[in-house]
């Protein structure tokens, strides 16, 4: 699993000052985070409203990638975009899929002949519907806020690569790899403490959750030692 990311960017008539301030998430909404089957998919996503584009990103199109045209149209087009954008990111909750996995590459090896890991990922139909729903809502939000145009990137290839899953946590050894305290069901005294124990990806960046799980596992280690 990873975090499929889509992005919608509105362009407004007036300067917004959005290129000032931190680059991260300014506003978060989890209005569509929980499952509502009437939407056509399970689980949901977070909206992350980001600040405006920097001078360079304004020219090159940022994550949407629609570069300002070069030539005599350039200055006018750039002036209509710089300092006039709001970006809404949609970060979806990915589910485990049989085809999405990490295995050993049959051909690629390192300098010692050890096979390299191979990451296989294909966006699931559930995640595709989730992102499409998010893009449609983001368009509504941006237009309601006064955007004169909205452009979208349906899937950021360079974003959201938070690798999670493949060693899920659970009580049943038949359906999980580690127990509730990170211990492998099948290998004594082997702990797994990272994003691979997550059961779904959640619709938020995973670091805080991974840290909390790590502290929980560490507490269990200490308790068993004493």
């Amino acid at each position, binding site marked *: 699993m990873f975090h499929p990311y889509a992005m919608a960017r509105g362009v407004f008539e007036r300067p917004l*000052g959005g290129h*000032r*301030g931190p680059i991260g998430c300014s506003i978060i909404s989890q209005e569509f*985070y929980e499952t509502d089957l009437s939407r056509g998919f399970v689980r949901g996503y977070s909206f992350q409203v980001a600040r405006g584009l920097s001078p360079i990103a304004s020219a*090159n199109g940022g994550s949407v990638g629609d*570069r*300002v045209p*070069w030539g*005599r149209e350039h200055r006018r087009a750039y002036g209509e975009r710089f*300092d006039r954008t709001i970006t809404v990111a949609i970060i979806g909750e990915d589910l485990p899929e049989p085809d999405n996995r990490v295995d050993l590459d049959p051909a690629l090896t390192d300098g010692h002949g050890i096979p390299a890991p191979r990451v296989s990922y294909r966006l699931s139909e559930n995640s595709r519907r989730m992102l499409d729903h998010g893009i449609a809502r983001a368009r509504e939000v941006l237009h309601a806020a006064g955007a004169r145009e909205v452009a979208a990137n349906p899937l950021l290839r360079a974003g959201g690569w938070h690798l999670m899953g493949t060693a899920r946590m659970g009580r049943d050894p038949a359906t999980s790899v580690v127990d509730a305290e990170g211990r492998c069901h099948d290998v004594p005294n082997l702990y797994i403490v990272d994003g691979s124990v997550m059961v779904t990806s959640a619709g938020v960046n995973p670091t805080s959750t991974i840290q909390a799980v790590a502290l929980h596992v560490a507490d269990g280690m200490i308790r068993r030692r004493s």
Partner: protein
Amino acid sequence: MTPERLEAKRDLLISVLDTLIPADEEFPESGALALDHVLAIAGASAEAGSLLARALEAIEEAAAGGEARGFAGSSVTQREELLRRVERSHPAAFEALVRHTYDGFYSHPATIARLGLEPGPVQPRGHRIEPAALPDLARVAARGPIFRRA
């Protein structure tokens, strides 16, 4: 064509950059502001240098096949038409040329200042954000939690 040859074609490169981002009332052409960045990138990265050199080579070839005045001596319309042909025939190399030109132009302190920003590191100066009234969140607060209970 190596990055050194790119440097040797400086005059042509300046003309190309000026065509990509022409001057207006407030901003100079990009040849004056982006040139050093484009040359630095070509020298720092063999891949970027190769792409940029290929783009310039294609422009030079296309210009040689046209009127005797060459690229710099052509009208703005002719230069843009020629560049559009190269953009179609050498998309990867031309994309690199445009991207590095934009990067160089819009990271130059003179451009930053003209955009109304202060060049240089933001910290410790920080940003001046005008105070604004908070939106009315009473309706949202009244709805209560919408997340799933664990």
